[in-house]
């Protein structure tokens, strides 16, 4: 398929697939950005408060672009805000990984690192997507993702090889969050079809790169990688979420839901 610039060049099947795929990308970043924003004003030290907020802002910014594009692909006149503020939990396509509460700083960093590695490789591949509007978003996002990864990787090293307490906390965090990593790589028919057309990223190769960098970092941080043999959660991409998402949405959506159509 040649480069697709507008939705009219996409078959209606690809259009539906692409809409869903963009929701996956956008919702991950929206919900994780929302979670990170909860640290603003409560970080462990001022400098880190600013750093986490920068990452949160990057992710929400990316979500806005991705959801805008999703709305455009869908062709039903829905804006990024409509998609963020007026969908039910079952229509969200984010991972359970990003829905989990922020926990302690170790949990926030462990989850962030696992996502950042995924995000980075995903965006790197999407820079070559044949859907040009998506590759343009990825070209900007991959730079941000590279910095996010640098930040969280350095913190994994510091917490892992810092004090006994920090080591214990970050190890516990990785152990607890691990079962949410499986569904990052759950490729379904939809992603396979988009991959075939050169529109989506290849989760199989991302998984290989992800595992290598994650394991290398954990070893360097004197941590033990949890076993992949353990039970992995699944189904988020089909709308099967944790209970936390509903609570995130009840806060996020309160005003647009209470005053439909109002301008703020």
């Amino acid at each position, binding site marked *: 398929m040649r480069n697709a610039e507008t939705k009219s060049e996409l078959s209606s099947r690809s259009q539906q697939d692409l809409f869903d795929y963009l929701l996956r990308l956008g919702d991950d970043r929206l919900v994780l950005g929302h979670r990170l924003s909860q640290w603003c004003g409560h970080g462990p030290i001022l400098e*880190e408060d600013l750093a986490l907020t920068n990452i949160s*802002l990057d992710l929400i910014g990316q979500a806005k672009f991705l959801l805008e594009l999703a709305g455009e692909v869908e062709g039903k006149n829905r804006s990024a805000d409509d998609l963020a*503020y007026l969908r039910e939990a079952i229509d969200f396509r984010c991972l359970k990984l990003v829905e989990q509460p922020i926990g*302690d700083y170790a949990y926030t960093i462990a989850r962030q690192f696992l996502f950042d590695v995924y995000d980075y490789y995903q965006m790197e591949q999407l820079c070559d997507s044949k859907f040009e509007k998506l590759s343009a978003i990825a070209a900007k996002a991959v730079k941000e993702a590279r910095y996010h990864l640098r930040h969280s990787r350095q913190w994994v090293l510091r917490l892992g090889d810092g004090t006994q307490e920090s080591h214990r906390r970050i190890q516990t965090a990785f152990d607890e969050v691990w079962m949410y990593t499986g569904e990052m790589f759950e490729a379904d028919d939809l992603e396979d079809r988009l991959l075939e057309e050169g529109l989506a990223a290849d989760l199989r190769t991302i998984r290989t790169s992800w595992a290598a960098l994650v394991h290398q970092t954990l070893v360097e941080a004197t941590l033990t990688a949890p076993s992949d043999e353990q039970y992995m959660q699944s189904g988020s991409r089909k709308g099967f979420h944790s209970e936390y998402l509903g609570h995130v949405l009840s806060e996020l959506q309160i005003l647009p839901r209470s005053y439909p159509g109002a301008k703020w």
Partner: protein
Amino acid sequence: MEDANKLKEFEARIERGEKIEPKDWMPERYRTQLIRMISQHAHSEIVGMLPEGNWITRAPSLRRKMSLLAKVQDEAGHGLYLYCAAETLGVDRSELVGEFLSGKAKYSNIFNYPTLTWADIGAIGWLVDGAAIVNQTMLAKCSYGPYSRANLRICKEETFHKVQGYEIVCTMAQGRPAQRKMIQDAVNRWWWPSLMMFGPHDKNSPNSAELMKWKVKLFSNDDLRQRFVNLTVRQARAAGVTLPDPDLKYNPETDNWEFGEINWDEFWSVVRGNGPCNRDRMRARRRAHVEGAWVREAADAYAAKQRAKAAKSA
């Protein structure tokens, strides 16, 4: 005797409009007054993140969410610049933070009021940041170099804070009846505390004369307050909200908007800890500090290990 000469030279420098830099001679009193003022200013920025932070997860659009998040983040940055300015006077940030967390140091009273609706985010940006800008514009010209530079940077960044707040006020004031009610209610609640931000009347402000002599402050509390009122009356008209003061009236002779008496009993009561949120604010900051302790320690410990490794391999 030497000190008397040094003091004379110091005051002459200030008179000439020169900036005092960290290593320059300064009277002990100038140093302690500055540390007190700058650290209070820093604590205020940090506590100031909390009332607005309360609405970050509930902002009504992605655009509003990003603006608010960036604004609250700027406040952390401003606190940081200010702590660094205070540190040039020979104190450690850990000491200043310690004095704040133990309740010894003060911070701006305004942040002990609650944010009840989204309209409060508009009112704070417009009124509280508006008042802060009037004050900080003056402080950007103060005699102490590092404090002046910190305020200059703060003013540069803060211009968007007020505009984002004022935009919310204007949007809601032109919105639905429920929104108009919310915004007027927020303005009613934040107006008087904003006027209190400039501090007591000059006659009841013991430090003012000295601070003005040394050009730490260039205008009195009452002068700054008047400047703020004059600016804000026009903006209230343009936005379509009213200011909750029946005594507000224009005096053509002075070209000032005269306003009613501030409730100083309320002011002092909140200073003494009786505001609606004093305890919540302190609790939140202490919690962040206590729960962050192991993170700060871990980073120090890692750095020490890396240094030891480097020394060994050298």
